[in-house]
């Protein structure tokens, strides 16, 4: 199947406040899809619907379908815990586990997901994940350092490595660079491009240039509606909707 995720008529509410209105979109496998739009339009809410991160939020409600590998993730038969191992997430603020070493941070998902692994297998996976997150060379001699003692950019890459270690198919990233300096941002962008060979990536960003550089597809949200979604080149050169054009040319938002 060429779509990793299919979203159909997704609506979401916090209490009485409807935040997402009939969102329908297909997310192509092994591609980078950027979600853009002004602050408060529901981007974070949307991507958190894709791995059921809202399950514990009191008053939150969804309607509609999100199909992952053809199955609705909101059906009763789906275990959200197993879903999240397949659909991982990286947050806006780097959030390594405070009282764990860098190594433990990366290993933690494996350690608690039930399958027994030897020490050597664990170390191998940690190395592989850190390499994928372009952090191995910087960190290989300091794996025992507390995760929270790394620089912001390193912490974010550590969080990416941590997410990759459980071998997800989809990686959701909510403004992963907004707390980082330009150098770290460039590193993470490069990383996203590399990872898109093997992973489906959905990334929320406010940064036009960034979206232009990294994405294959762009979805533009406004006040809870999906205004349009298309190939990145098309959105940036010839958007179908006037509001998209106004947003990307900086005339509002």
């Amino acid at each position, binding site marked *: 199947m060429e779509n990793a995720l299919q979203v159909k008529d997704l609506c979401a509410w916090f209490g009485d406040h409807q935040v997402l209105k009939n969102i329908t979109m297909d997310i192509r496998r092994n591609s980078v899809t950027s979600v853009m739009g002004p602050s408060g339009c529901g981007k974070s809410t949307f991507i958190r619907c894709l791995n059921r991160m809202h399950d514990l939020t009191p008053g939150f409600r969804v309607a509609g379908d999100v199909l992952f590998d053809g199955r609705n993730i909101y059906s009763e038969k789906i275990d959200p*815990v*197993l879903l*999240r*191992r*397949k659909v991982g997430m990286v947050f806006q603020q780097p959030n390594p*586990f405070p009282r764990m070493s860098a190594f433990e941070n990366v290993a*933690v998902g494996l350690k*608690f997901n039930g399958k027994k692994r030897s020490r050597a297998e664990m170390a191998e996976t940690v190395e592989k994940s850190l390499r994928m997150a372009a952090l191995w060379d910087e960190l290989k001699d300091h794996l025992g350092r507390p995760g929270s003692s790394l620089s912001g950019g390193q912490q974010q890459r550590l969080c990416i490595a941590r997410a990759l270690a*459980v071998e997800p198919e989809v990686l959701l990233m909510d403004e992963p660079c907004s707390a980082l300096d330009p150098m770290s941002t460039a590193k993470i962008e490069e990383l996203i491009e590399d990872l898109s060979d093997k992973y489906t990536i959905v990334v929320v960003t406010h940064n036009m240039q960034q979206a232009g550089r990294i994405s294959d597809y762009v979805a533009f949200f406004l006040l809870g509606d999906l205004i349009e979604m298309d190939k990145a080149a098309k959105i940036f050169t010839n958007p179908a909707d006037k509001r998209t054009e106004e947003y990307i040319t900086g005339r509002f938002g």
Partner: protein
Amino acid sequence: MESIAFRRRAADRVTRGLFALSAFVVILPLFLIFFDLLWKGARELKWTLLTDLPHPVGEPGGGIANGILGTLSIAGLAMAGGIPMAVMAGIYLAEYGRGKFASAVRFAVDTLTGVPSIIMGIFGYVLWVLPMKRFSAWAAAASLAMIFIPIVVRTTEEMLKTVPASVREAALALGIERWKTTLFITVRTATAGIVTGILLAMARIIGETAPLLFTALGNQFWQSGLDQPIAAIPLQVFNYAISPYDDWHDKAWAGALVLIGMVLAISGGARYFTRVRK
């Protein structure tokens, strides 16, 4: 203009002075108590105080070794029983406690924290000493546990609430089950704070006297079992202090000094763990 700036600076200095003075007055009693104890207890503060049994009236020397052991056993029992229960209840309140039941528990725990300790003693007496027909270490430990548990429940809850939501979210997003997240990640993140709370509660129960009067009773000898009356430092201090003999008064001071020393050591440990947390 200048006079306004001057007035503002003066006001600033006066308020700051007041705050500093209050802070000084707050710590003053600790120093007064400590130096007074050192002064009066020093005479009896010998090695034998820590190693010997009490001697009968008129016989010089003797110590409070059985009281030290008794206090440690009672507190140890109270903590061995109290810590698991209190920490688990604290976890419940912090991680799952949203409904009416949880607010009822919270209210009850807060009330329990405020119950005078002598009532816990009477409670231990009625519930344990009377049915068993004897004073015992068990009864004393149960009374102290009732003081210890509510404190630890609440500090555990508070400490877990200081763990940022982003930590729980990160674990959730990795596909780690909720119970494992709670036990192995959230609690682990807050461990230093929880231990601090436990130590402070321990410091609190170690010096409790009133509940022991009704439950431990006291004992002049080494304890022969936990189902027997048991000695404790606060009881010995109490008995020495109300006696009419001068050398016993000196021993009361020395015993009090040992007790304060223990509390200081525990508080110091708590400070250490607070620092680890940062």
